[in-house]
């Protein structure tokens, strides 16, 4: 199949990129656009490590075709702060010890961001529900939940 020229708006920047239809958004973000903060773990929708935000909703980039998300607002972890200047949510993750190996972290942060953007003062249950699709082996999740609640408090 021939490559198609598609336009992807990632973190506010419009990229024009040639891709065949069978490329997932995850592959295009990582392999062609260099957004390696989006992690490639299970690749079949089981773990949430590749979570990105599209039009305000957390979705899995491993199950999304790149060609079908043109004209949409795609946010990856790179849209938030960088290592020197983390945004408030990322800072809460760091301060609360919600980061260990860090492989689930970008997806986890984005699931949390999608929640807080929509619901700045979530209940505990809403926090848990928002990250229930993001697996973490290191932390046991308690500090992740704490970090998101901490960010919600600091945001208010």
């Amino acid at each position, binding site marked *: 199949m021939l490559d198609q020229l598609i336009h992807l708006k990632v973190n506010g920047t419009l990229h024009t990129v040639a891709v065949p239809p069978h490329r997932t958004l995850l592959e295009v973000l990582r392999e062609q656009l260099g957004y390696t903060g989006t992690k490639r*773990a299970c690749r079949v929708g089981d773990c949430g490590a590749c979570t990105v935000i599209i039009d305000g909703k957390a979705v899995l980039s491993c199950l999304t075709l790149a060609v079908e998300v043109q004209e949409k607002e795609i946010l990856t972890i790179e849209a938030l702060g*960088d*290592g020197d200047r983390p945004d408030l949510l990322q800072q809460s993750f760091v*301060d609360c010890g919600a980061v260990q190996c860090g492989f689930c972290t970008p997806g986890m942060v984005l699931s949390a961001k999608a929640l807080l953007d929509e619901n700045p003062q979530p209940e505990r249950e809403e926090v848990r529900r928002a990250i*229930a699709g993001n*697996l973490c*082996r290191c932390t046991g999740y308690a500090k992740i*939940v704490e970090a998101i609640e901490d960010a919600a408090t600091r945001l208010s």
Partner: protein
Amino acid sequence: MSEYAVLGKRLPRVDGPVKAAGTARFTDDLSLPGMLHGKILRSPHAHARILRIDTTLAESHPGVRAVIVGEDFGDYRYGLKPDTRDEYPLARGKVRYLGEEVAAVAAVDEDTALEALELIQVDYEVLQAVTDPEEALREGAPLIHDDKPGNISVHMKTSFGDVDEAFRQADYIREDRFYSQSVLHGFLEPNAALALWEAPNRITIWASKQSPYFLYRNLSNCFNVPLSNVRLIQPYIGGGFGGKNGGYPVDFCAVMLSKKSGRPVRIVLTMEEVLSSHRRRHPMIVWLKTGVKKDGTLLAHDCRIIADGGAGTGVGPSTIANAFYFLNLPYVVPNVRFDGIRAYTNRPISVAQRGNGIQQIRFAADVQLDMIAEDLGRDPVEIREKNGAYTGYKTTSGMHVKSCGLRETITEAIRAAEWETHYRPWREKMHEPLGRIATGVGIACNSFESGARLTGHNCCTAVIKVHEDGTVSLLTGSTDSGQGSETVLAMIVAEVLGTRLEDVFVPQTDSSVTPVDPGSFGSRVSSTAGNAVLIAAKDAKQQLLKVAAELLKADPDTIEFRDRKVFVREAPERSLRFRDLARQTVAWGSGTTVIGQGSWGQSIPPLNFETGEGDAGGAYSFGTQAAWVEVDTRTGKVTVPRMVVAHDLGFALNPLAVEGQHEGSIAGGVGHTIYEHCVEENGQNLTPNLTAYGLPTVYDLPEEMVSLSIETIDPVGAFGAKESGEGTQVSTIPAIVNAIHNAIGVWITDLPVTPEKVLKALRDKKAQARATTEGQP
């Protein structure tokens, strides 16, 4: 411990910001110009002879740059010890488990590499497979390695004290069989390697390794390249838990494909490959016979185990030895007999996993202790307090307990669990009808080696460079696979040199630059590398002191380093900034560069794999866990809403990191107890994805986890610290299983605790009770 400026504080980890920002680079995030993508062809049979491999079609496929098979590696084999080298980079002659690596391809992109795999033709002669360890040990079972008769990979038979006499003296003896299933490490970052071969003989490899220097030696041997030419650079590691210790086929293949193609090659496994054919924890059958006095005093253990080793030995000898060692602790058991066999089977290779061999044995021993307590009408807390090891205790087998806060951990754990309020022995509850949700509490204790002693190279070395602006680099070969050791080691440097944590930079391991190190396993890093770092920091400080003494015109003994200042203790106004001292040191006189160095290893004899005599590590941690469970008596579903960890870790170098270790241990332990299981059929894993396998989500782990640190200031570890990341997972299983018994009166001795098993156990108990009643006149 307020005398410390940095240590003992809840400091966020130094690599937190880059990880949260997504800019921390893992192996899969790296690429090089001209890089090829590698893929591995795996065996569809659990046991088969390879008759022929035809790679012609794959080689001529457009975009393919190299294809390799077992022959490319000659006769190279690898393994922990000279007599256990039974693993191949790619299968030679036969395949021994389903998913074993048979060939590999490098191509211009992943799609092409995958297409090429389909073009490789392999003819197999299928052999009878044996996937059950007990079957494998039976006479006449198919032989997995021709030179390993009886399919015995490891056999350790040993005895201390007089076990037979102890049983004769025992008032009560109990014998039970326990089974711990096949579970996976569960890291989210699949194994990956990026290799660059530069002719004539240089290897550079970026690979996700807990122990980079194992692979460094492996590659030197495999490719006949001097060690100085093996450069292993360690990117961030997305979790290891024992599944990223040494070299694996993915690493060897990446290098060989690069050598053959002349291009850099990256191989990243899929999660399906990791779950179906990579390493896992040893499934283990444990028969445990225990003799006690009427009052619950432990007299003897007689234990037999069969561990399912899979098709290779890996670090299996240490797993079996650990199982033996931790029959001797955390309780005083004066007489211990052990017969441990690790059997080869046609299954993926079993290796270490957080707690290496100890989970399985402590599950058996600590559940059986509760059984005994119940049989004798004793209290589970009291029986643990009575039998607990203590500071100064030496096991009959020769393990020296130099610090022990076991009793304090019991006290703290039951206090936090509100034990007195919630615990009622089952015998008091058994006549009450079970509600829909039955609740119970349980405890279990643990001990673990703090800094495993190896055979061969054992010590850690640290090098500290003080830069002229007052910042510091710490070079260490100890890796941080997520546990936070990088932060803790940097804190030690900052403490000694009186700088701040942010002034210390820890470059990731690079075998050309950082000192050789055993790596991250056996709970070594904080305790063992920590001591090396402490010595190195003191060495650097000593060098700086000389200059400071001249500048401040004071005796070196009177000078203090704290918060970026160097000053005379009794006259703090006589001070200079640390950065000025650093600059002046470079310029002073003829000038000098401050490089501190330190090496430290446990000063105990190497592990004795034959008899198990002596120590397993430099020190021992102790701990207690309490679990609160809810059992749905209609579905059998068990949940653990609350769990307490009280751990004697010597000294909490960083309490925030410690909590993370405790909570992570609970996560792995709850998964192992209730959720996780590789369901297999003829050597094929039917659950090779995280959903079918059942890695716990946020809803499946205790919402409330209490982490308590008991500080005993160990004489061996750096600043008195002992391990806190593995022992804490050892007692999770028995604490939960004991709590289930407390809730519903049944003993689950076969893991995982699936709802169906719980329901069946409840039914069986009811039927038994009915039969007993009916049998009465």
